[in-house]
């Protein structure tokens, strides 16, 4: 499903966090939202999953303004994996956490039916979380938790996935596993990522936020120019497509421009 974010302006505690931020994701696209801390990435995501109402601008999912939809209708289109889980819901099993994804599909009187069970089972399988099904969520490792939360999002049967820093605190293998999993879903995705290398691998397009505004958007190599990396991220680096087809970021010997070159780099 298509996502359009148009001219978003959001002020929090009298501080303008976003001003005229626009972006677009075509159906099936994986769009990476990158930018330094405090650039407004999480705020933009909140507007997309209908948690923050912008004072100006509009977020459209599948052509409809998310604020014209009910909370439940919006959540049937958009699922999010966020960082507020903390230690996670104590006492819920993995299956019960995944089943939370069925919340927007039911009113107050709704009971779980065959469709719900099927969606939960399918999501567990898709994320390789089947062996964890009976475990207490809080007993899982970081990587396992993120896989289960992604399964919860899939059980929601969304047409747009919103992901906020879901590779944080994961070991390197767990990161790549999670990326492969996201790719395999085929769902339109908007992902905030801190690690530019991972962003370059995962995403079709990148959108760069800087001080509340979109300063660049497009294919990875078009966006991550040395100039942008220096101005927005404050590092001396280049992004290149290597002979194996993978785009990698190479950071300079003196990435901060301090005039100090480490011995190992110089020698």
């Amino acid at each position, binding site marked *: 499903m298509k996502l359009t974010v148009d001219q978003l302006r959001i002020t929090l505690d009298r501080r303008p966090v976003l001003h005229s931020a626009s972006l677009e994701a075509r159906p099936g696209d994986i769009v990476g939202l990158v930018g330094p801390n405090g650039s407004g990435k999480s705020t933009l995501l*909140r507007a997309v*999953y*209908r*948690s923050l109402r912008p004072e100006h601008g509009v977020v459209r999912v599948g052509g409809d303004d998310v604020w014209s939809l*009910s*909370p*439940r*209708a*919006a*959540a*049937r289109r*958009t*699922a*999010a994996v*966020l960082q*507020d*889980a*903390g*230690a*996670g*819901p*104590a*006492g*819920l*099993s993995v299956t*019960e*956490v995944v089943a*939370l*994804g*069925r*919340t*927007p599909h*039911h009113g*107050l*009187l*709704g009971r779980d039916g065959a469709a719900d069970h099927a969606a939960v089972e399918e999501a567990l399988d898709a994320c390789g979380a089947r062996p964890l099904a009976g475990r*207490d969520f*809080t*007993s899982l490792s970081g990587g396992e938790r993120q896989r289960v939360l992604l399964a919860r999002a899939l059980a*929601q049967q969304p047409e747009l996935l*919103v992901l906020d820093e879901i590779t944080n605190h994961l070991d390197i293998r767990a990161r790549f596993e999670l990326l492969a999993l996201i790719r395999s879903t085929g769902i339109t995705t908007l992902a905030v990522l801190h690690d530019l290398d991972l962003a370059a691998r995962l995403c079709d397009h990148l959108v760069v936020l800087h001080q509340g505004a979109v300063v660049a958007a497009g294919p990875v190599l078009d966006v991550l120019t040395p100039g942008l990396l220096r101005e927005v991220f404050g590092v001396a680096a280049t992004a290149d497509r290597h002979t194996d087809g993978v785009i990698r970021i190479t950071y300079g010997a003196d990435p901060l421009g301090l005039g100090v070159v480490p011995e190992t780099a110089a020698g």
Partner: protein
Amino acid sequence: MVLSALLPAVMMVAVGIGAVDVPPADVWRIVLHHVTGGGAPGDPALDQIVWNFRVPRVVLAALVGAGLAVSGVVLQAVVANPLADPYVIGVSSGASLGAVLVITLAGGALGGLGVSSAAFLGAIAAVVLVFLLGRRRGRLAPTRLVLSGVAVGYVFLAATSYLQLRATPTELRQVVFWLLGSVAGAQWEQLPVVTTVVVAVTALLSLFGRRLNALLAGDESATALGVDVNRLRAVLLLLAALLTGTVIAVAGGIGFVGLMIPHLVRLTSGADHRRLLPRAALVGAIYLVVVDLLSRTVNSPNELPIGILTALFGAPFFLWLLRRNNSLDAA
């Protein structure tokens, strides 16, 4: 299910035991006679003891236990704090002030207002105050709610303490008994209202099981799951306040049940609210019936306030359960 069969059984036993022991067969016959109108009325003295004193008391104990446990489950989820109990939003301090006002200043009735009504009004006034103070820009943040509840509680407590200082020894004894809680004053006339509130509010709250589960995932995640978190929190708070206010108005400030029964049930059967709410209601009911039975038998013919015994018997069992459970180590 075992629990739903256990509750009536425990209630029948509790009705039979006391200063005069009544055999289960007689209890059954008397209750049946009053409920269906059939059978022989039997010994009028026994009939009086069973039907006029013990049955309303046992029924009230069950209702109060269920109400406190359900309210505790809901509030622990609403304010996202495992230390929350039904009194966290100021209900008990408000109710205490109302009750103590009437006991000390009006000798039991203020402009026709009895202790129960005054306690209920005090409870609702406190909750409304906490609700208004806990709200900021239309949002009810859990931490702000809890802290507002604590602050309002202290203000009400100060007023209550001052009134206690001015009270006569007789009034003071009455105040202390009220504060510790009791179902000894149970009367048939109270039961219709209390039953209606406890049953209706518990049933309503049970409908929110799925959304309460979503709340466990955090406010932002719950929002992304299609839950209107602010509205949900407001609705649940008001329902829990109504439930707690009603219960505390008739039984005083019985502690422990609303804090511990939710944890006890969670430790044994998980945190899914669709299971947790009905089970907590049954366990809370059974627990308070048993503890009330103890409160009137261990030191017979004197009665101990139920509030003393709820913690004395419950806490060691709870600690034992806590040590057995592994899932708490992970978090």
